């Protein structure tokens, strides 16, 4: 094993850096794209529903039932309408989209019936959550006392759930993309050949390629964190130092993945496709970002173990919302570190082999 030469590693890193800053257009895209993604995904994933049109049919007409209705009217979540207890009327109201939900109060106040428009199951379940939340928080006199307490996110803000997820998604996507293109570009242009003939070692090449992109990806990480905090009103309870250290590890994992992709693809196009598909799909589906992993079949759950975003999601949610410290997040960090080492050595190995038997 030969000794790594610092000059050569920095020569690669510096050159890579020049490529980046000369290409102003791509540079702008690299920084702008994550922000656009954040904003687009952010508003698209925003699952909070305001202005629920709620029809209430008060058949009790007592002090208590009025108090109940008041608690709905007092919240800006609802537009409350009075509706008759006629099933045809209710049916019509739903068909004409006048109401999203109807609450029937029985004449003896014993029975509350909630009818929700189920054509969009997602919003139906959110509406259900809201209404039962209001019912239990109001000083109502519901016969069965359901008292739910939500930890960390008492207002059920959806930004609490999607901002950390988006940081995980955007970081892995951009980072993998950056490094995957950077080597295939040299393959396509034929400059790689010139490097192969020099005394440059494969590991020096790999490390040199990694360095500038760590810097860029970290900058992007902070950028989306800050924008996420400003735009979507999320808390950040952990420490900035912990975020720096942990996102550094995550970025390294993603960049190493990009490097590995570039060893198997021949063209920039190929590299880009692979990078996008293999970062986006698992992060969206298998990291626990969009869909809870607990409800998935065991096979999928096992696969999710190799999705780096799953660990970073723990980290990001822990830091932002729970206020975890570094030691509490040691486990996901070690996983990410392991992935990085594994991916880097695969990339290094494959690349060294290609250098040897280049046809």
């Amino acid at each position: 094993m030969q000794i790594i030469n610092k000059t050569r590693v920095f020569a690669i890193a510096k050159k890579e850096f020049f490529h980046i800053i000369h290409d102003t257009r791509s540079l702008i895209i690299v920084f702008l794209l994550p922000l656009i993604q954040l904003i687009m995904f952010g508003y698209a994933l925003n699952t909070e529903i305001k202005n629920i049109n709620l029809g209430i049919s008060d058949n009790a007409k007592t002090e208590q039932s009025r108090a109940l209705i008041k608690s709905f009217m007092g919240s800006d979540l609802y537009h409350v309408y009075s509706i008759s207890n006629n099933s045809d009327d209710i049916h019509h109201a739903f068909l004409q989209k006048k109401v999203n939900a109807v609450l029937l109060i029985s004449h003896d106040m014993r029975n509350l019936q909630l009818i929700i428009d189920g054509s969009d199951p997602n919003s139906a379940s959110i509406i259900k959550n809201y209404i039962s939340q209001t019912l239990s928080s109001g000083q109502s006199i519901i016969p069965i006392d359901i008292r739910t307490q939500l930890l960390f996110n008492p207002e059920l803000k959806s930004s609490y759930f999607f901002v950390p997820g988006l940081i995980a998604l955007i970081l892995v996507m951009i980072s993998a993309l950056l490094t995957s293109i950077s080597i295939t570009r040299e393959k396509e242009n034929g400059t790689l050949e010139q490097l192969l003939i020099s005394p440059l070692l494969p590991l020096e090449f790999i490390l040199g390629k990694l360095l500038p992109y760590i810097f860029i990806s970290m900058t992007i990480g902070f950028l989306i964190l800050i924008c996420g905090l400003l735009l979507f009103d999320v808390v950040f309870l952990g420490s900035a130092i912990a975020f720096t250290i942990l996102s550094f590890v995550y970025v390294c994992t993603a960049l190493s993945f990009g490097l590995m992709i570039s060893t198997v693809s021949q063209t920039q196009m190929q590299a880009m496709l692979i990078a996008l598909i293999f970062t986006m799909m698992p992060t969206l589906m298998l990291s626990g970002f969009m869909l809870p992993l607990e409800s998935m079949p065991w096979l999928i759950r096992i696969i999710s173990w190799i999705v780096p975003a799953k660990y970073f999601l723990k980290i990001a949610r822990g830091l932002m919302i729970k206020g975890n410290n570094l030691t509490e997040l040691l486990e996901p960090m070690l996983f990410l570190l392991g992935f990085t080492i594994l991916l880097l050595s695969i990339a290094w190995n494959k690349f060294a082999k290609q250098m040897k038997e280049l046809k």
Partner: protein
Amino acid sequence: MSKILSVYTNKITKKFGSFTAVDNVDLEVYQGEIFGFLGANGAGKSTMIRMLCGLLTPSAGEAKVGGYDVYKESELIKKSIGYMSQKFSLYNDLTVAENIDFYGGVYSLNKRNIQEKKGEIAVELDLDRQMNRLTKDIPVGLKQKLALACAMLHDPGIIFLDEPTSGVDPKVRKDFWNIIYQLSEQGKTVFVTTHFMDEAEYCHRLSIMHQGKIIALDSPQNLKKKNEENSINDVFIKLIRSQIDADYQ
């Protein structure tokens, strides 16, 4: 011609699967020689050069480049050779100075050394005012000379030029060959492949490859005399055609 051996191969062979790209080739090239490598695409020229540069391990035979063994000392070979290919190995989106810095770094030259070299190149190629221009914006002839200069930054004794003049016009090619002659006079060994047969005439010695074998190796003058032809172009056509005819039978 000085008699210091620069490149030596003995029955060197390279197989890719069942395909023999280079077939038992013997070669002796001396210091200061301009050695031409001719042959059709796929004749084995590139494979041969790749082996001599330490990029490919031969399947059989022995080879020494600058005194180093291609099997065991490929890292040392890489330090003592220069290589420039048809595609211009420069980064078009970097400036001239950045390209020089980069290749200086790859060959681990120190900062002062790189600065010195940069100065020399600026004077020699009259590039002083172009140092901060993007490489893609400088004329193609200049780019080609710069590529050669970058390949020579670490002052190698042997230089491989893989179709260095492809895509440039006759005037630029002629200028480039003057540089090749200068290198040879400084005692550098120059390996060159080309598709231009008029350039082949400029070499000290020539080899013509066909299907992995060297079918002719001599000075251009002798090759013409032996084959009773007026130009290397005609020699080449005659030799390859007779070889193809022989293959048919």
